[in-house]
């Protein structure tokens, strides 16, 4: 299912690639899935295409394209807010290399609010 999503949005929305990413020499373009609560700040899109080879780069480019998202994800010190989880290929980056986690081409990144269970 996730592979399909990447393929579809990569080919169907090429125009957003340029606007969503800060230009740089060579950059991965990956799909970032947004939770409902963040979609209004990204023009209502459920996912956006963003460039970057680490989560930190990716977020910088995401915020450059959609400034309203920034304050929701990162605190004043530029670190991930407590109630925000970021997943690279469905793995929580807090248990990988945090914002320095590598983002390989083709993987999907998801931003999700922390939610209770039980």
């Amino acid at each position: 299912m996730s592979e399909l999503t990447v393929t579809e949005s990569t080919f169907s929305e090429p125009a957003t690639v340029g606007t969503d990413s800060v230009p740089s020499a060579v950059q991965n373009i990956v799909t970032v899935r947004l939770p409902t609560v963040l979609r209004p700040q990204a023009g209502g899109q459920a996912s956006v295409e963003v460039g970057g080879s680490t989560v930190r780069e990716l977020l910088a480019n995401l915020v450059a394209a959609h400034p309203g998202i920034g304050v929701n994800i990162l605190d004043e010190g530029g670190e991930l807010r407590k109630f925000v989880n970021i997943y690279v290929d469905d793995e929580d980056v807090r248990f990988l290399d945090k914002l320095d986690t590598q983002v390989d081409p083709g993987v999907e990144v998801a931003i999700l609010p922390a939610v209770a269970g039980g």
Partner: protein
Amino acid sequence: MPVLSSVLELIGNTPIVDVSQLSPNPSVRILAKLEGQNPAGSVKDRIAMAMVESAEVAGELRPGKTVIEPSSGNTGIALAMICRTRGYHLKIVLPENVTAERRQVLEAYGAEIIPSPGVEGSNGAVRKAQEIAADNPDWVFLYQYGNEANPTAHYESTGPEILRDVPEITHFVAGLGTSGTLMGVGTFLREHKPDIKIYAVEPPSGERVEGLRSLHDGYVPPVFEKWGGAELLDGKRIVRPLESLEYTRRLVAEAGIFAGISSGAALAGAVKVAKKWNAEADGPATIVFIVSDGAWKYLSTGAYTEPLDEIAESLDEVIYF
């Protein structure tokens, strides 16, 4: 077997079944701990019993008193069984988008259901229960997300049972809800087996929760923070509904275990670990994962019989963790 004086004596001491036929790696055993064998049908019987006993010992809970708790189902059902046998009134704040079976079991045990908006998910139920508890200080608010008896129950029972039955364990995988199972079992196992790996799986619930005004309304259980979850866990991953369903069905079809949907998510996590495991370098491995409950409470979703894609989509709207 001796005759028991109460159904509550059946809580705990659940069996572990080898389901290595589902392992993608011949050097990795996968073992399922069947928490659905508890009398009210889920792992939550353990923590419900521990929270009630702890409130009784503290003198807060006496027959005739009222208990209030937010729950997406299993904790509520466990409390309902216990409160019925102990003479307490129970009010459960329950999100509207849980299965009909969960609601019916609560009603059968005589619990009063206070609905909370489905779009707010479990976070909304927690918030509403906190407000109601504040307005009714004479009621007992057990608050599983912050109650020490929750992880302690797993530290004192589930963890020791696993080590007793599977001393060779190398990995533990369970679903993350209140985090009580992972914190209690994980802490106990790490103390006895420092090299053990502890992994959490969770559904992508936050993706669709619309009741959040902003990400600041997110929720990290106090239990997770107090027990050092960030340091205890070696990894945490999302398992999406389609993958959860596929592995739930495999548990039923290939191992005969009639498991609930979150159990499929835990198995999917275990399989991922097994695939990555390098037996040549690190030797054989033994993964224990938790089957939190049985399939009975999810039959109405069609999870076990209807076309996978359709069901996976509709599960986005249902709380099953």
